[in-house]
């Protein structure tokens, strides 16, 4: 029972979500908000791996989201749909539903490779200097995308909705809910397992003291490389999901403001806490949607609210603790490794 409780809960949640969206109990707006929650969970947990667990300060997460979003949407549009930029579909559109996860993973791999852009300088540079490198990397990625005219440049890139329609011709189910849910759960499991592996111990060691870790025989360069690549790769998957949920990507939507959002989610949840990141991503998305009627006041109210939260809980909601650390009695009922 203890082993099965988390999978059972997830399956129940999944079937509720799928059922509600399949029978159109919840409208498309609520569905989109739920999708954004999943995407934000991936974004914040993946950034948390670098900023919280490893103790670096990466400010350019949106750059990797952008790479994932562009690569996976270009691939899916070129492979499965007829488009002006890439001509007729390369593969039959009926394969869209099966090919989509591979396309997403390709986007993830592409942005993991882009993660090398900051992983390699990170061997020699630390904290605030690394922060600058990530900001510069974000700028570089955005301007590089703007300058490639084939994929729309500053006008943005669209056509991902047709991929979704192609998937729906296969089977009439809410595909995006399925993929976002699957990849969100997958991300959390990957990060959880990574953090409890030997590498994870090395990551913890780097956070506490990098030099001491190196003296103790931790291969800090390799661990940094792998951690940055995992983090940016998962961000790329979040980007791919974002692109296919919205149906349109624009380089301007991945600027430093998006990175700031990711940072806020990490630090609101508490550094190094997966539960905190998940919780804060959900809260942050809800807050953005609930305060929507306030229009421009929203953008004053949300930062103000966050500053006030910071004043009362300077370590974030969870503060480097997981769910089981806060409610020890719950540990009897679940096991999530």
């Amino acid at each position, binding site marked *: 029972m203890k082993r099965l409780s988390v999978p059972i809960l997830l399956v129940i949640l999944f079937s509720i979500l799928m059922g509600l969206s399949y029978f159109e109990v919840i409208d498309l707006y609520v569905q989109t908000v739920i999708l954004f929650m999943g995407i934000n969970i991936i974004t914040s947990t993946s950034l948390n791996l670098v*900023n919280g667990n490893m103790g670096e300060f990466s400010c350019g997460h949106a750059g990797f989201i952008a790479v994932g979003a562009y690569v996976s949407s270009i691939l899916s549009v070129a492979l499965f749909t007829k488009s002006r930029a890439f001509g007729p579909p390369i593969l039959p559109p009926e394969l869209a539903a099966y090919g989509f996860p591979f396309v997403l993973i390709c986007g993830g791999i592409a942005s993991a490779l882009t993660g090398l852009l900051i992983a390699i300088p990170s061997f020699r540079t630390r904290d605030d200097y690394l922060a600058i490198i990530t*900001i*510069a990397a974000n700028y570089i990625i955005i*301007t*590089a995308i703007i300058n490639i005219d084939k994929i729309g440049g500053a006008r943005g890139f669209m056509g991902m909705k047709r991929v979704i329609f192609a998937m729906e011709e296969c089977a009439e189910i809410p595909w995006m809910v399925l993929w976002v849910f699957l990849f969100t759960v997958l991300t959390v499991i990957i990060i959880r397992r990574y953090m409890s592996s030997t590498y994870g111990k090395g990551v913890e060691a780097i956070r506490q*003291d990098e030099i001491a870790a190196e003296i103790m025989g931790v291969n800090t360069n390799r661990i940094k490389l792998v951690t940055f690549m995992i983090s940016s790769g998962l961000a790329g998957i979040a980007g791919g999901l974002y692109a296919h949920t919205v149906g349109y990507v624009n380089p301007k939507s991945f600027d430093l403001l998006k990175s700031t959002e990711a940072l806020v989610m990490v630090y609101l949840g508490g550094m190094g806490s997966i539960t905190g990141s998940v919780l804060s991503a959900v809260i942050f998305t809800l807050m953005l949607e609930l305060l929507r009627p306030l229009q*421009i006041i929203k953008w004053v109210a949300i*930062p103000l609210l966050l500053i006030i939260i910071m004043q009362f809980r*300077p370590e974030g909601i969870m503060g480097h603790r997981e769910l089981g650390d806060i409610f020890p009695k719950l540990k009897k009922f679940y096991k999530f490794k």
Partner: protein
Amino acid sequence: MTRENLFSPSPSARITIKPIELNDIVLETFLQNLLNALQWGSFYSLIALGYTLVYGVLRLINFAHGDIVMVGAYIAFYISAALLGKYGMPQVLPGWAVLALTIPLTMVLTSLVGVTIERVAYRPLRRKGAHRLYVVITALMTGLILENGNLLLLGASRKKFPELIDKVIYKVGAIYVTNLKVGVILTSVLSFIVLHFIITKTKVGMAMRAISYDKFAIPLMGIPVDTVIVFTFVLGSAMAGLAGILFALSYPILDPYMGMSIGWKAFIAAVVGGIGDIRGAFVGGFILGIIEISVVAVFPSSYRDLIAFSILLLILTIKPTGLFGVPHTTKI
């Protein structure tokens, strides 16, 4: 050749002169661009100085700094508009006197804004011993509040900064020099010298250096840490206010988001120079200005950020602590 074109930093303002030999044109274009780059770099330098002052003392990246520049520009706009008789006040002063009054008033008011932010947002967190990065996030949020609060209060329409002094164009050889360009460059050099004097020669400066050296031992020596920190914010924000006025004078259209990207870039400039050292910030600002202008002079302008930041990344990869930064030695 219109006047506006002449003052823009972009090299599209290449001056068309009577056709002479190519070498001369290349040299003149180069000198003209260098002048523009120095002006553009002056803004970065002034803003980077503010970043680096706060960073040097508190080890806090004050991400709200770019928006304080924006606030400074708006304060300057309202003061000069009031002095010019916009709000029912009689206009008695000539333009240059308005400018002479606007600069100190703006610097004082902007430093008030900076100190208020420190007092309300940063100090409580510091007292609670929050992790350094939580203060950084608070700074980011403060910047957002300043931007969007401005949008909320003053509306989305852009403001046109009044022309306070007549633009005089001097022709040195074939290069066009305006009094504004010279003024901007001189002001930034002058403020750097003043800051350098304050930091290296005065008692407050010594206290600032001491806090950045060891912030645990310093209160025990009887140095009022909070007062020194407030003083740092006064200096930094005054620099931001000055940068705001000069920016508004050079590019007289104000909008709430004007400070954001120039602030981020100035921070990058400060780090390339070696953050925490004001010489580094000063030099870094000019380096970034020169790189940006020369990239735009050769490539299409949409490549500016791409190439400029790649060069900066390269500098940081070769010299990880920036140009003037000293590597930290830590005991384990």
